[in-house]
């Protein structure tokens, strides 16, 4: 129960202050604070670093950029640690990773590299509908192929990032709609509709890859 853990940590932090105040004021109290603060961050961050990196890696689709995003996000998280009072450290950190990716990293990225996203233009054309229908019948067979892993990773990487992120958060991090809505800063209904579209697109991508190979 993370809530209890944080409450306990907050408690020990406060006690640290009080005890330090009784013995020696000033610098020592500051150091104690620093230590428990660092301890709190250390726990959050070691627990959720893999989730943060996996999320950044799927957003950026590149190792070096993912590392930069995670480093920057962790610095931001450390700075805003005082503002975090919730009990869901993973969702909190992932929200910062996402925010970092979209503001800091995107600005530094060359224009036109990202997959274009337009929720309305994602409406399927006739060809896609046919792909979707045959994919529904053959998904089991596609997934049993020897290169299923490559096909799935390629299909996921091809998704526009707004769709890719909800799938990664849902299927790889197993987060609830509510947590995803908080992280992606969209209403709950949008999480559901994006997941529905993302899964349709994934089926189409898999079917196309299957046809081409």
């Amino acid at each position, binding site marked *: *129960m993370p*809530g*209890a853990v944080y*409450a*306990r940590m*907050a*408690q020990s932090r*406060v*006690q640290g*202050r*009080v005890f330090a*105040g009784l013995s020696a*004021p*000033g610098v020592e*109290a*500051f150091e104690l*604070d*620093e230590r428990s603060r*660092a301890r709190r*961050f250390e726990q959050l961050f*070691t627990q959720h*670093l*893999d989730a*943060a*990196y*996996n999320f950044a*890696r*799927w957003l950026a689709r590149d190792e070096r950029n993912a590392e930069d995003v*995670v*480093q920057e996000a*962790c*610095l931001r998280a*450390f*700075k*805003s*640690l*005082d503002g975090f009072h919730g*009990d869901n450290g993973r969702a909190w950190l992932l929200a910062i990773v996402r925010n970092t990716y979209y503001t800091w990293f995107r600005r530094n990225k060359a224009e036109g590299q990202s997959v274009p996203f337009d929720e309305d233009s994602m409406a399927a054309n006739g060809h896609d509908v046919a792909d979707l229908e045959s*994919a529904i*019948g053959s*998904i*089991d067979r596609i*997934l049993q192929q020897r290169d*299923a*892993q490559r096909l*799935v*990773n390629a299909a*996921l990487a091809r998704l526009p990032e707004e769709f890719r992120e909800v799938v990664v958060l*849902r*299927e*790889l991090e197993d987060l*609830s*709609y509510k947590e995803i809505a908080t992280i992606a800063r969209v209403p709950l209904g949008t999480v*559901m509709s994006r*997941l*529905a579209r993302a*899964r349709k697109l*994934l*089926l189409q991508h*898999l079917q196309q890859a299957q046809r081409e190979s």
Partner: protein
Amino acid sequence: MNCTESRSRLHAYLDQELDLPGAVAIDQHLAACPECKALFAAQAALRSGIRRHAEYHAAPADLADRIRSKIGASPADVPARRGWRWPQVGQWLPVGAAAAAAAVISWTAAIQYASVAEDQSVAEQVIAGHARSVLTSHLIEVASSDQHTVKPWLSSKLDFSPPVPDLAGAGFPLAGGRLDYLDNRPVAALVYRYRQHVINLFVWPDAKSGRVPPEALAKHGYNVQRWSDAGLTFWAISDVNAAELKTFSEAYASAR
């Protein structure tokens, strides 16, 4: 429920984001509609395919240390630290003490909340187990009003032996038993009848043992009685009214 409604909720169903009545409605539609069922099967296959095959990128081994050194090495990069300075400790002491008290309170509250949340989740599972057994006609695996048939059958399949008294005298004839899965473990489900109603009594060992007096809950139109005794946890659930379910629990507890 028609196909349009069912398909609009298919993803919420797949992701277990629907409440129990919503999920049961989809269950029923899928059982009757092969097209929707095929669609659901494809989505379920896709989902497990992604979970199995999509790469989970763990952080590189040295990333944590690089971040630590960044945070530790240059305090100038971390202005928020200034907020933690504690210039006049004496002046703040009462505030600190109050905060400590508040932290203790919230800690206690968090522990209590944790156990309430746990119970809530078990209660949801008990209700789901009951609804499933009634709806899917998977109510009884060993049909017998004879306690000497039901008890050995359950004991042979579980690592504990639930008490199976016959309560026909009290108006609750034994109908049989089955295995179910609750609270992350196989449990005994005893089925009793009361007039036209079904009472499911779930029994499983409880590490927290000790005696916990009966407690009544009501949720989604069902009544629930739960208690613990001699290392076993009991959850009785039914659509009978609360007073009748209480009579049942008392009859069971005194007969065992």
